[in-house]
């Protein structure tokens, strides 16, 4: 099988899966088997490309010419490879979890849910493998639209309002900033392809570069840079598997992934390093890190706290990319992976708690660790990873980002990172502490419950273990990230 | 001299403005159509008048004449008149139907009726 065919298959498999899932809407078991098989196939396809990319190849395929000179083109490079691996790998786990969650909570419209999920994964793979800005933008918008039914899954007035915010912010930013930025890039440079070293160098003035960068980072609303972060907490009305995979992994990572990709392949790290007109970005992202952390600290709703934590963590990636040092860019790429694993674990745990105990607030969690030891242990692992404590993977990415900040002499950024670490600890550790060391209040004593259904527990244990494992076996992501900046 | 020499244009302009004014200022649907007719008539004049050559005769070839008026504007305007008649007939037919449906041919009254929110189905009550 040629690499080009593999790429196309990786796009087609989830779509075919979606059709089959829709066809099997009368037989839940068949439907969910198809979901799992599709997820597995997708991961195998994506993984089969990895050796090629590691060997330095950049398989590519051009699908069709959309407009003269502008094609729908896919090209696998290290960053996309890393993102694709994470998204497709976690989809398997997430499918397992979804089956448990959707059945246990007796949700409506399950077929639609699985169909949209498969569609979302197809879009994510499209984003990961996009060979030019146009393709990226197309799948970026497709991802927004296909996740809209997932966000509004409940169909209630609240879901409808959340859907408005979700769509308004994501479509609004992408249409008003992202699209003009792409067209502008096309106009000045004559190409929208991702090329090592960027395409804008020497084509646009410093001022124009600064404006373009602003259009890109704010236009990519999925990166949730303040003030365009409101959609992410709003999207938390969705069922937890959606929050877990999409709003901790696929969608938000698609955002920061696009930012990193654009900084690396459109602007060029070395090409814009030291430019006055682009040095505002660390401040915006630093502000987002701190501000979102404070909001997270003050949120009692668990999913909301996780959402704001995500907003904050996403800006780590943006900040790391904005520092424009090779080490920090490696950190940015790694953080996409490590945060994904950590945050999906946390969301899985939140969903398990909701399913088993019907609790949504942090303050209700006293003593829950005794009844749900697996869940809360996994939660603790995820929390440690986000804080950046060693045997969890989060440490590695944070290490690289901080080294990058030190290397570039960005001491303010360093300070932000340290402060944020403290914040992370402040809003995660009390939960872990309460869960294991406090006595449950009387109300929760009243109705007994154990762990969530086994598929959910299995899934979250799996991701928690992966978080630890990634710390010890970080070769693959590290290699990919190093290739990104050309440091082998 | 110049003013008088262009008198056909003055009449054209006068007719056009009169017609347009009636269309805009009158609320009666039939009067509007009358205005529209006057407006269109001004165009006929605009075409026909310059086609006439002083001393020219009807453009039917005959040995005793050498100077003919331009026949083309007449042909054009014959077409335009037919179009105008068709428009007028259609407009009047619509007014008849409007009168049957609303019981009025005054624009303000009809708009008032539309605001009431009652919209009877007209297909059943009309012959053709």
């Amino acid at each position, binding site marked *: 099988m040629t690499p080009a065919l593999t790429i196309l298959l990786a796009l087609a498999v989830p779509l075919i899966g979606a059709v089959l899932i829709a066809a099997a809407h009368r037989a839940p078991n068949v439907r969910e088997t198809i979901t799992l098989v599709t997820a597995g196939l997708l991961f195998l396809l994506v993984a089969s490309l990895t050796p090629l990319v590691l060997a330095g190849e950049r398989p590519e395929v051009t699908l069709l010419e959309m407009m003269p000179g502008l094609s729908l083109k896919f090209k696998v490079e290290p960053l996309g490879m890393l993102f694709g691996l994470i998204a497709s790998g976690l989809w398997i786990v997430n499918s397992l979890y979804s089956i448990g969650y959707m059945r246990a909570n007796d949700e409506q419209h399950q077929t639609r849910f699985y169909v949209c999920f498969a569609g979302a994964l197809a879009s994510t793979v499209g984003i990961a493998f996009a060979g030019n800005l146009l393709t990226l933008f197309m799948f970026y918008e497709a991802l927004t639209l296909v996740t809209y039914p997932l966000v509004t899954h409940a169909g209630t007035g609240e879901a409808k309002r959340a859907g408005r915010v979700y769509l308004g912010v994501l479509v609004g930013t992408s249409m008003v900033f992202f699209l003009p930025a792409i*067209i502008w890039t096309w106009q000045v440079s004559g190409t929208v392809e991702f090329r090592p070293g960027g395409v804008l160098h020497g084509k646009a003035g410093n001022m124009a570069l600064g404006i373009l960068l602003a259009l890109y980072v704010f236009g990519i609303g999925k990166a949730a840079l303040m003030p365009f972060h409101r959609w992410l907490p709003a999207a938390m009305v969705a069922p937890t598997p959606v929050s877990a995979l999409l709003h901790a992994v696929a969608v938000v990572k698609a955002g920061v992934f696009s930012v990193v990709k654009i900084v690396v392949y459109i602007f060029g790290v070395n090409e814009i390093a030291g430019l006055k007109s682009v040095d505002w970005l660390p401040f915006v992202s630093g502000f987002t890190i701190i501000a979102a952390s404070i909001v997270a600290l003050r949120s009692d709703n668990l999913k909301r706290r996780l959402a704001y934590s995500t907003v904050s963590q996403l800006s780590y990636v943006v900040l790391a990319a904005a520092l424009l040092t090779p080490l920090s860019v490696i950190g940015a790429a790694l953080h996409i992976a490590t945060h994904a694993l950590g945050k999906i674990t946390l969301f899985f745990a939140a969903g398990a708690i909701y399913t088993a105990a019907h609790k949504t607030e942090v303050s209700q969690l006293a003593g829950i660790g005794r009844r749900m030891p697996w869940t809360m242990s996994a939660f603790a692992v995820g929390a440690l990873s986000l804080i950046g404590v060693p045997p969890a993977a989060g440490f590695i990415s944070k290490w690289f980002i901080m080294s990058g900040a030190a290397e570039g002499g960005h001491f303010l950024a360093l300070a932000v990172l340290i402060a944020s670490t403290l914040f992370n600890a402040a809003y995660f550790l009390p939960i872990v502490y309460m869960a294991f060391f406090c006595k449950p209040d009387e109300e929760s004593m009243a109705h007994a419950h154990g762990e969530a259904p086994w598929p959910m527990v299995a899934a979250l244990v799996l991701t928690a273990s992966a978080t630890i494992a990634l710390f010890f076996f970080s070769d693959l992501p590290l290699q990919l990230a190093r290739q990104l900046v050309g440091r082998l | 001299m110049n003013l008088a020499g262009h008198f056909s244009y003055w009449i054209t302009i006068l007719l056009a403005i009169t017609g347009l004014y009636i269309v805009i200022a009158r609320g009666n649907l039939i009067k509007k159509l009358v205005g529209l007719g006057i407006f269109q008539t001004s165009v006929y004049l605009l075409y026909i008048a310059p086609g006439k050559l002083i001393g020219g005769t009807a453009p039917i070839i005959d040995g005793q004449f050498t100077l003919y008026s331009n026949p083309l504007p007449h042909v054009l305007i014959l077409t335009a008149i037919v179009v105008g008649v068709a428009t007028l007939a259609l407009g009047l037919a619509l007014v008849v139907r409007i009168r049957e449906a609303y019981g009025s041919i005054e624009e303000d009254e009809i708009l008032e009726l539309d605001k009431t929110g009652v919209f009877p189905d007209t297909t059943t009550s009309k012959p053709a």
Partner: protein
Amino acid sequence: MIAQHFPVLQVVLPLIAAPLMILLRRGTLAWLLAVIVSWTGLFISLSLLAQVADGSVISYAIGSWPPPWGIEYRIDRVNALLLMLVSLIAAVVVIYSRASVAAELPAHQHYLFYTLFSLCLAGLLGISATGDAFNLFVFLEISSLSSYVLIALGRDRRALMASYQYLVMGTIGATFYIIGVGLLYLMTGTLNMADMAHRLSGVTEVRPVLAALAFITVGICLKLALFPLHLWLPNAYAYAPSAVTAFLAATATKVSVYVLLRFYYSIYGESAVFSALPMGKILLLLSLAAMFIASAIAIFQADLKRLFAYSSVAQIGYITLGISFDSATGLTAGIVHLFNHALTKGALFMLLGCFVLRLGRVRFSDIGGIARVMPFTSFGIVLGGLSLIGVPGTVGFISKWYLVLAALESGQWWIALAIVLSSLLAVVYVWRFVEAAYFQEPDAGIAQLKEAPLEMLVPAWLMIAACFYFGLDASLTIDGAAQAAATLLQGLQ
């Protein structure tokens, strides 16, 4: 041999079919004839398009009187594109119309409907094909008169008033046009467009010629519903029978745009209109006003047909915006949007017609939760709406890309911003439909509805599919539009 007569057959076939339908007197037979004629027309137009693709110009002398004395039909890359568009829409709509007309009109009017439809089609094709300014007026009136009647066939009594208003406005527009042509005729002594262009070159700053330009611009802008002259359009589209709305929305205004282009670029010449006069700025301002104000009005409509009618006014603003840039890219954007918007709006109005078939009307208050019972219709409207918004993968995106590109090329970044901002307004009104159709519980009346028949759904979905096909692979449409733009910019030889 017959192929050399295609330019005239294109127009004459529906013109001959119309009286035949009166003689046939049977709705079904008339429909069959209309199908045959419109599909033949599509074939002819495609063949014409292929003939002129290399940049050649077909000149056909009616009655063998050579131009400039006789009436000339003149097909180049610009109007071949228009002929193809009009024939395509007609061919699709005529299939769709049978079920829709059967439900919305009394049986004894069916054959008259197809007669008028054919006449309207002949008029629109004639406008596109002819190379004679006065002949254009005649066809303009043929299409207009038949469309007034078609609109008046609407079920609601307000259709009568809408038709009347359109008649008054349309007649004023056509009369303005004919005044302009009259002035040009007085100055040049010719009605043949190519000849006129030839004689006007270098003397376009003479006052009667400028006055003629003003009259023609206002007259045609009335017909194409450019923003402050659009007042007839929303009611006309809202109360006309569904098939009529779909057909007119997709073709009538587009053909008027073509007339404007023909006069600006081919007859007056680009420099006379855009360099010597501030026509670009005027068009720009009016287009921007259309894009924002009409979209904003659309958001607050209670009736879906009116909503999309106002959206049409806004979308026409995009077309004229492209023209106002006075650049190859801008013109390409305008022409490609003309095509794209025809596809999108045609599809949308056809799908709305499916609702009308089942409900009798399409107010927001009537369609709560209708997606449950009419999923294909509802989803089609959502997809069409995405194209209006300009989501990548749809034709709307292609148009937007070129419009923004043209704005950036002209160095006016704030126009680019205006284009993308106004497309957000489309998100709002499309999502009003989504929330009404998908987020409400259907009441008892809705719950017992059935999905629209296939003979309506299939044509509508064909158009939706075309919206996506030409959105993903736009090289065909872009090439066509770019060539048409190049032809226009180089003027008539």
